[in-house]
């Protein structure tokens, strides 16, 4: 994962189904998340957006179907090979999931220490760069418990970007952020995509944000992709619910 190399890893789900007990969350979902593009995933709470992201990083295993990272079927990988594949992916959890026994800076440094042989000075420089990019330059020495929800989210994003992954999965980046910071994070994501060719998959409830980030928008409903297209296309969707979604929250 040398810095600067343009990433060309796309993601493809083929007939993915997932249920938890009697609850069917994903129902035969097939979707292409093209390399170097930003796909925004929309849908009501509890429709399986987070579950979808977790399948891409292999934290959840589909009951049926396959998940491709590039041309590699990650559902077929043994744990060691899956770990290697995961190094290409950055993941921001919906709840940030920072390691709460270490500082913010150590959280961001963690993947670097594990997977690179960068000298300490360079690790520190990279950590500062990533934290500055999310506007947390002065939070380096703080413990996660001392941060606000929005700050934790941003620290989680810095950690997800630490290895400069070719695929960046982001679960609700703007939750807990003021509109200005939210916009800054959107700009950051767009910049990362442009400059590095990173494939972005962003879950959000924030429609203005979805417009700014998304090349393509997916609308997930009752375990299926109900609509897929640009923001303009979704506004004219044949589905009432999709149109409602696009308009009701389009205030910004």
């Amino acid at each position, binding site marked *: 994962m040398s810095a600067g190399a343009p990433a060309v890893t796309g993601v493809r789900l083929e007939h993915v189904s997932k249920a938890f007990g009697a609850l069917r969350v994903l129902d035969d979902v097939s979707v292409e998340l093209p390399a170097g593009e930003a796909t925004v995933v929309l849908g009501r709470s509890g429709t399986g957006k987070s579950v979808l992201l977790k399948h891409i990083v292999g934290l959840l295993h589909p009951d049926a179907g396959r998940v491709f990272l590039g041309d590699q079927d990650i559902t077929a990988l043994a744990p060691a090979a899956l770990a*290697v594949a995961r190094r290409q992916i950055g993941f921001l959890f919906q709840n940030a*999931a920072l390691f709460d026994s270490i500082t913010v800076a150590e959280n961001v440094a963690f993947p670097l220490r594990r997977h690179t042989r960068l000298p300490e000075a360079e690790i520190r420089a990279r950590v500062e760069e990533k934290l500055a990019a999310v506007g947390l330059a002065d939070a380096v020495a703080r413990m996660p418990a001392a941060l606000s929800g929005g700050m934790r989210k941003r620290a989680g994003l810095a950690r997800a970007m630490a290895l400069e992954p070719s695929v960046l999965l982001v679960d609700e980046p703007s939750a807990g952020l003021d509109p200005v910071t939210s916009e800054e994070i959107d700009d950051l994501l767009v910049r990362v995509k442009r400059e590095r060719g990173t494939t972005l998959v962003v879950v959000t409830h924030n429609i203005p944000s979805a417009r700014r980030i998304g090349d393509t928008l997916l609308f997930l409903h009752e375990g299926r992709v109900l609509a897929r297209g640009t923001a303009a296309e979704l506004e004219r969707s044949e589905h009432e619910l999709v149109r409602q979604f696009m308009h009701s929250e389009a205030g910004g």
Partner: protein
Amino acid sequence: MAPLSSAGYAVAFAARAIREIFLPPYEIKETARQLYEVGWRSLPLIAVAGFAVGIVLSMHTRASLERFGAEALIPAALMLALVRETGPLVVGLLVAGRVGAGFGAELGAMKVTEQIDALEAVAVDSFKFLVVTRTLACMLAMPILTTVMNFTGIIGGWLAESAISGMSFEAYFRSAFSVVGFADYVPGTIKTMVFGYIIAITACYFGVHTRGGTQGVGYSATRSVVTASILLITANVVLVRLIFFLFPETTG
């Protein structure tokens, strides 16, 4: 999960930890950190408890041996009781309380806040990083802690004795060590490695399988202590039998 399959699953979990202790990569830094947490930070507890146990054992030994006019054997009798059984068992139960609750709650909290998933997402083998390190640390710390308890126990025993008979420290030690041999010290102390294994595995198992938020974390801590204690006391019966079989001279 049915009770039987979950018991089988727990056994597989326990076996995996032993196997992976010997398989690279070795998480040396994390193991050292756990050794500090489990070993070093348990020292005050163990030292004080050993001292108190030594005093109590001394009082009982004196009461028993006085009847036979065998006061001269008091140091030796105390030493034998302490080194063979009391020391290992008391250390086991104290560590089951302190460390069992700690692991159960810490890993439980990591589980419910998705920090364990976050480790996996940054391509770290969470079993190796969390469970194997703690298991090894516990197994290494136990014999050391037991030796410390034996030592402070003897000092406590001497203090209690000298208060009554005015026996000198030197005379007490010489008398105590005159009877205790390799076959008394080593099996009992090695046995505590098995206790360490039982404690760590039990607590890690409940910890990483925690469900249901804060309350679940509490349950995991409690279950860890209760289950580890009962497993430890039960295993002790078998272990004592085994030691008598392997070291016949200890029965003398």
